[in-house]
């Protein structure tokens, strides 16, 4: 029985020769061409339906098998509104996830040998026994609620079921407080509904698309990029507000190269212009909104001239773009964006976005925001989940009152014992999210982990988070398993099936199986009544008039909308909104009730000190954060990130293209690895830009280790949004070190 460890060392190198698994090395065969290449026909012998797990868009598609029965290629499902038959580069490159031989291959348990902490290979039984025992101990000593689940993948549904059955509802995805949380809360406070995923924006029918910092095109959310392309074909106007010349900016009629952190001023100024010139949709605003007078009074001083001084966008440009929006209204979208946790006042900024949309009358109308519908699928016949005694909210009394979902950063913080709290989290189950890269302030995350009694990491790849776990469980990729049906809300309701195209490789297993096995050991077997996931799916499908057999043939089943209300406000019928006043709240009573500003205000944010530059980060269309950094097909496209530096700045510092530099932030934290400089005009002189997800420090990932630098290491400071706890991350500043630092960061 392994003794309790006082401190978790980051176990970098896999030890104890995983020699038993060196047998088949298909990637080598693949590289030398013998698995798929010339001996196989370029013909699909069989295709299996699946939906992609590389990002969160979950496009449905087909896995094609060649004449050897191996996975040959992945294509999109024509009936799927998420992708319309075309997968994005990550989806197409999903084969790399399956064939990556750096994958986790066997369960691992942390032990100490000769004073050194290493992972020893374990059997599934050993691993489950270990976990179950610890979970019961935590439940006895502190309560089951002290175990939390962090998930950012389909597996979370299964572990979530197990954890809820166990007695904890503390389930979180970093996508809330680290990503899109503020927009859900901002829009909910205004319209009584959130944005959801896929976003309910009618881009393909819009006449004017306004992107505030959103970099669709580099952010490769498939449906959005496809619809933006449709909009370009139509001749729609695109207005991009971004300090960087993004791909979207290059396709925009107007690119507003805004000074970073001042977007709120621009939005308020637009609202001012639209109200004062009476360019808003009078009938719509009269009928549906509440608080116009208060709003008008509130924005009185936010003139374009005022905004010019703050944003550096010229007043006539502000007026012109406002007019463009108004001309296009109601077929206009001020896009809420996706990752919006920037400066700490993000909920308010999204409130301004919501208000602007309301003034233009785009919510609920064609070319604006449509009303998605989801297919109702019967719930499983399982016992009710026990009611937990406490939730994560109890760790933050009086704070983040409007947060709708659990905060990943909050749970992380609440794992560190603190004076005012009588208990903290003792156990983490982490599935499909590399918290080291995901959560800001790495040191904080690592400190939190040291306070845990149990840390379980379930992943397909040896991501950094697995190096801190007590138990590592190898999950098979999405191409090797069934999963819950994808029930997504869109213009038409659809369900999609994920079926395995290959047997799980090595000793990996599906999350459903793991959750079921654990549940059995915890005495919660009733929550997984079926023996195989296939049976569970077949049962569910039969409830909606389909079957596993049918779904295996078609992959995606479309249903007709139950209600003909795709654009519920078209024609301005009577409508009651899910808000306190029953109307669209330009003036938010919900915010007011909880003590927050009912109307968004402008706050100036800190600017970079001399010789420092604001760190802006983003996505590349060929990668999904750190998840794909080791995928051989995708590293072929991009195997490292570069830091974008304006030529003026490069000249000042004497930096040349492709020169390696280390980045140091305002707190003195330096990146573990150097990063190459890209001297480009596309970035403003007060900022630097890099793509998120590189700079991996785990040697087990042969293609990702040491490539580029990690922006997550530099995000040590956050501005927390008081309304819902979102962690604003664009408040870090960096400077350049042209020589290797004498004391490394890792």
């Amino acid at each position, binding site marked *: 029985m392994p003794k309790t460890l006082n401190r978790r060392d980051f176990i970098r190198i896999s030890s104890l020769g995983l020699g038993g698994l060196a047998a088949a090395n298909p990637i080598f065969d693949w590289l030398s061409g013998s698995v798929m290449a010339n001996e196989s026909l370029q013909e699909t012998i069989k295709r299996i339906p699946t939906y992609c797990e590389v990002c969160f868009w979950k496009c449905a598609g087909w896995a094609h098998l060649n004449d050897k029965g191996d996975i040959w290629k992945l294509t999109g499902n024509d009936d799927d509104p998420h992708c319309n038959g075309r997968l994005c580069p990550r989806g197409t490159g999903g084969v790399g996830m399956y064939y990556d031989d750096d994958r986790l291959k066997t369960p691992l348990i942390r032990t100490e040998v000769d004073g050194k902490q290493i992972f020893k290979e374990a059997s599934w039984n050993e691993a489950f026994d270990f976990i179950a025992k610890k979970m019961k101990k935590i439940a006895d000593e502190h309560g089951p609620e002290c175990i939390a689940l962090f998930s950012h993948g389909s597996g979370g549904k299964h572990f979530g079921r197990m954890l809820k059955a166990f007695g904890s509802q503390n389930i979180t995805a970093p996508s809330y407080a680290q990503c899109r949380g503020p927009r859900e809360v901002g829009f909910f406070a205004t319209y009584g509904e959130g944005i959801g995923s896929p976003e309910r924006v009618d881009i393909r029918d819009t006449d004017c698309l306004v992107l505030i910092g959103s970099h669709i095109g580099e952010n490769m959310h498939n449906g959005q990029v496809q619809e933006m392309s449709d909009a370009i074909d139509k001749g729609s106007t695109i207005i991009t507000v971004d300090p960087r010349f993004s791909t979207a900016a290059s396709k925009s009629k107007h690119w507003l190269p805004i000074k970073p952190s001042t977007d709120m001023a621009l939005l308020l100024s637009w609202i001012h212009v639209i109200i004062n010139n009476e360019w808003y949709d009078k009938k719509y605003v009269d009928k549906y909104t509440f608080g116009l007078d208060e709003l008008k009074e509130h924005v009185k001083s936010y003139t374009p001239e005022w905004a010019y001084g703050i944003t550096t966008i010229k007043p006539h440009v502000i007026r012109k773009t406002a007019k463009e929006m108004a001309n296009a209204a109601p077929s206009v979208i001020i896009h809420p964006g996706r990752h919006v946790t920037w400066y700490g006042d993000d909920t308010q900024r999204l409130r301004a976005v919501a208000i602007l949309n309301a003034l233009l009358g785009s919510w609920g109308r064609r070319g604006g925001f449509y009303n998605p519908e989801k297919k109702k699928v019967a719930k499983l016949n399982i016992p009710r989940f026990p009611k937990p005694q406490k939730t994560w909210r109890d760790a933050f009394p009086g704070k983040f009152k409007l947060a709708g979902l659990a905060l990943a950063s909050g749970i992380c913080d609440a794992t560190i014992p603190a004076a005012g709290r009588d208990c903290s989290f003792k156990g983490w189950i982490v599935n499909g999210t590399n918290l080291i890269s995901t959560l800001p302030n790495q040191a904080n995350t690592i400190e939190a982990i040291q306070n845990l009694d149990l840390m379980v990491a379930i992943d397909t790849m040896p991501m950094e988070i697995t190096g801190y776990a007590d138990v590592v469980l190898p999950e098979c990729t999405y191409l090797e398993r069934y999963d819950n049906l994808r029930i997504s809300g869109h213009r038409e309701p659809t369900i999609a099936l994920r079926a395995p195209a290959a047997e799980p490789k090595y000793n990996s297993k599906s999350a459903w199986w793991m959750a079921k096995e654990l549940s059995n050991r915890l005495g919660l077997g009733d929550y997984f009544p079926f023996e195989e996931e296939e049976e569970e799916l077949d049962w569910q499908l039969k409830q909606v008039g389909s079957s596993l057999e049918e779904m295996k043939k078609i992959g995606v089943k479309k249903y007709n909308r139950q209600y003909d209300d795709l654009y519920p406000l078209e024609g301005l019928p009577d409508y009651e909104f899910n808000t306190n006043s029953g109307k669209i709240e330009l003036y938010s009573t919900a915010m007011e009730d909880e003590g927050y500003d009912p109307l968004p205000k402008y706050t100036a944010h800190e600017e970079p000190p001399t010789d420092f530059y604001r760190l802006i980060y983003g996505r590349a269309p*060929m990668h999904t954060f750190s998840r794909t950094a080791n995928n051989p097909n995708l590293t*072929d*496209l*991009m*195997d490292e990130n570069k830091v974008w530096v304006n*030529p003026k700045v490069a000249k000042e510092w004497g930096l040349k293209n492709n020169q390696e530099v280390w980045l140091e932030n305002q707190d003195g934290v330096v990146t573990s690895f150097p990063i190459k400089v890209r*001297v*480009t*005009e*596309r970035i403003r002189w007060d900022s630097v830009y890099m793509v998120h997800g590189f700079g991996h420090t785990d040697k087990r990932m042969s293609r990702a280790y040491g490539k580029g630098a990690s922006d997550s290491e530099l995000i040590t400071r956050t501005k927390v949004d008081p309304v819902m706890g979102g962690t604003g991350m664009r408040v870090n500043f960096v400077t350049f070190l042209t020589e290797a630092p004498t004391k490394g960061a890792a």
Partner: protein
Amino acid sequence: MIEQIITSGKNNAGIDPFLHVWGWEIPFYLFIGGLVAGILFFSALFTIRGKEEEFPTAVKLAPMMTPILLGLGLFSLLLDLSHKLYFWQLYTNIRWESPMSWGAWTLMIIYPLTIIWSAIWLKDVFPKWDWKFQWIDEGLEIIRHYKKALAWSLMILSIILGMYTGILLSAFNARPFWNTAILGPLFLTSGLSAGAALIMLMSKASKEKRLFARIDLMLIGTELFLIIHLFMGFLAGTNVHIEAAKLFLGGEFTISFWIFVVFGGLIFPAILEILELQKVKIPHYISAMLVLFGSLALRFIVVDAGQVSRWLY
């Protein structure tokens, strides 16, 4: 400022970031081709003028090297192929538009001829040689009667061999540095010069050495003239040609070209040869070796520079 990058990580081996598919094998073969052309040319020339006995090295001895040299050259060509087992496909058709095809067939014709040519003179050089087969002796006697005809065809073929290596490169108009008609004559002259140098090196007769030193001087002069015109042509051409010329006028090949090829391989040996002709005591082998080295270096640098030069877009 124009910033052009490949965002999808193109890194095909030997293609990116700069073309480098031909290593040492091709320049080595081009050098051999030029050298052999030079040797055969002079051998044939002096045979036609009936001067076999006056210049025995040029006519009889030097050509003995040619089958071996050509063999080495062809072997290095085989090494260059990336799909070696299929090399025989070269001889299943003649492609009139492909200089590579001409080269393959020209060599097919020249190689046997060099063997025959060497065989004819073998007994002159090694009197004790015995063919061991009667029919070889008789066959060679018959061929010896047609010496002059053979010499004429050899002379023409050697000029083709010497020129075609340059024309081969100039046919690739995707490489601006090679895209000039001067390359053919330049390589021919360089080859003849190398041949003359080798003959100078191998010869024991001072009259032969002096003649070939004078011939070599003329060839060096011609070569320098051609090189100057090469660059003048480029600099008067389009953008891509000017960029190609710049590789040698401040770019990465500047030092190697002007020092190894022009000064070390042409001007310095020319000075040495002039001094030798003025009866200053300088061993002939120094200038000969320099000329040979310069000829080899020329091929290496031209092949490398041509791959680096590209159309700008």
